[in-house]
């Protein structure tokens, strides 16, 4: 594996996380529990889709095979997507969507803060840009965790169920393989282990405030970074890719 190949894979992991989470959030369009949250969730979605565009453009350039950002976003098969499993989990109720968002936002912010120092100028620039947006995302999801966790009996119970469910995907956020090892050595990406403690501390602080608890150590699921996904991704891709598959090369 060359450095370029490692970087290409890494960029796809970033791109796919933001694309798939952005798509999931867009499913809320017109279905939000209140108008303000409908607009908030689709705003988050727009930020993430914008971020994925930057990663895909750069990935296409690094690959240098003439593929475009659209080819990468819309025309790969399921096992070629390398997003983490957390982001492809179905929306469930608003509480579950917020919980998924929260666990990802904490990671996302810490990652971007470190990625800004990348020796790769373009990756650093994308991180710098995205970080400003993700700070808003994290505040939004953190406040809802507390509001709903420490809300009514009903909202508390739903949030605790969501925490039990989504926390099975936390360890995968910190997954590392030879792609990461090579890029860490080159100073292109941070070592995610360096911010694991900060991740746990922030999560614990907010969950305590929300009167919620992380379950006792549960079986952790992984596979997304290698293209092994839960059954949910296929359905999501069927919708995401429909237009490009049905009308190849269509443009808005």
């Amino acid at each position, binding site marked *: 594996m060359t450095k370029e190949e490692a970087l290409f894979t890494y960029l796809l992991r970033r791109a796919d996380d933001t694309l798939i989470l952005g798509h999931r959030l867009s499913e809320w369009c017109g279905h939000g529990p209140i108008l*303000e*949250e409908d*607009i*908030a969730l689709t*705003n*988050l979605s*727009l*930020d*993430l*889709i*914008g*971020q994925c*565009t*930057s990663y895909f453009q750069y990935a296409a350039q690094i690959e240098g095979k003439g593929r475009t950002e659209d080819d990468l976003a819309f025309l790969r098969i399921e096992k070629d997507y390398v997003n983490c499993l957390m982001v492809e989990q179905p929306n469930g109720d608003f509480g579950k969507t917020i919980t998924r968002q929260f666990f990802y936002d904490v990671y996302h912010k810490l990652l971007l803060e470190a990625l800004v120092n990348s020796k790769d*100028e*373009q990756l*650093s*620039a*994308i991180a*710098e*840009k*995205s970080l*400003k*947006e993700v*700070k*808003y995302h*994290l*505040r*939004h999801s*953190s*406040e809802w965790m*507390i509001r709903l966790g420490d809300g009514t009996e009903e909202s508390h119970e739903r949030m605790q169920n969501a925490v039990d469910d989504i926390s099975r995907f936390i360890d995968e956020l910190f997954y590392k393989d030879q792609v990461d090892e090579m890029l860490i050595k080159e100073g292109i990406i941070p070592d995610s282990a360096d911010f694991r403690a900060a991740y746990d501390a922030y999560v614990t602080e*907010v969950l305590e405030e929300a009167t919620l608890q992380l379950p006792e150590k549960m079986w952790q699921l992984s596979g997304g970074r290698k293209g092994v996904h839960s059954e949910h991704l296929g359905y999501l891709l069927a919708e995401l890719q429909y237009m490009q598959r049905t009308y190849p090369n269509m443009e808005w």
Partner: protein
Amino acid sequence: MTTISAAEIWGFLEDVKDPEVPVLSVVDLGVVRDVKLREQNKWEVVITPTYSGCPAMQVIEKGIIERLNEEGLEVNVTTVLSPAWTTDWMSEAGREKLRAYGIAPPEDEVDKSVLFAKPTVIPCPNCGSKNTKMVSQFGSTACKAHYKCLNCLEPFDYFKCLR
């Protein structure tokens, strides 16, 4: 052959408006970062997006090309992400135009990491009252939050601070 200066190019760019906030030019907004002469009559305009997913950027790029083509100039628009756009780059004229248009311009805001921080007081662009309330941090476009004036009762957009 007349030579055109960079200052004149900046002047032409004043005519290119943000499609979502049409009172602001791309210069007021601070998205034009540089104007460079590449060769005779061939210019490069460097822009940076406000938000990663801002759908206005493509329209803005087209608008810049069309405006300079009108002057018989060729132009190449390039996009840079760093340094990342901040509302501090919005011109004073731009802030006044926003207010006159009914959108509250960006104010200094509290640290975003503070949860449940009291939202910054944003004066109503219609009546000037400080008795306003944030309805949602996320508004009609990525760059705006949604507020309501408790004095004149008008809802209004706030162009939120991004740093």
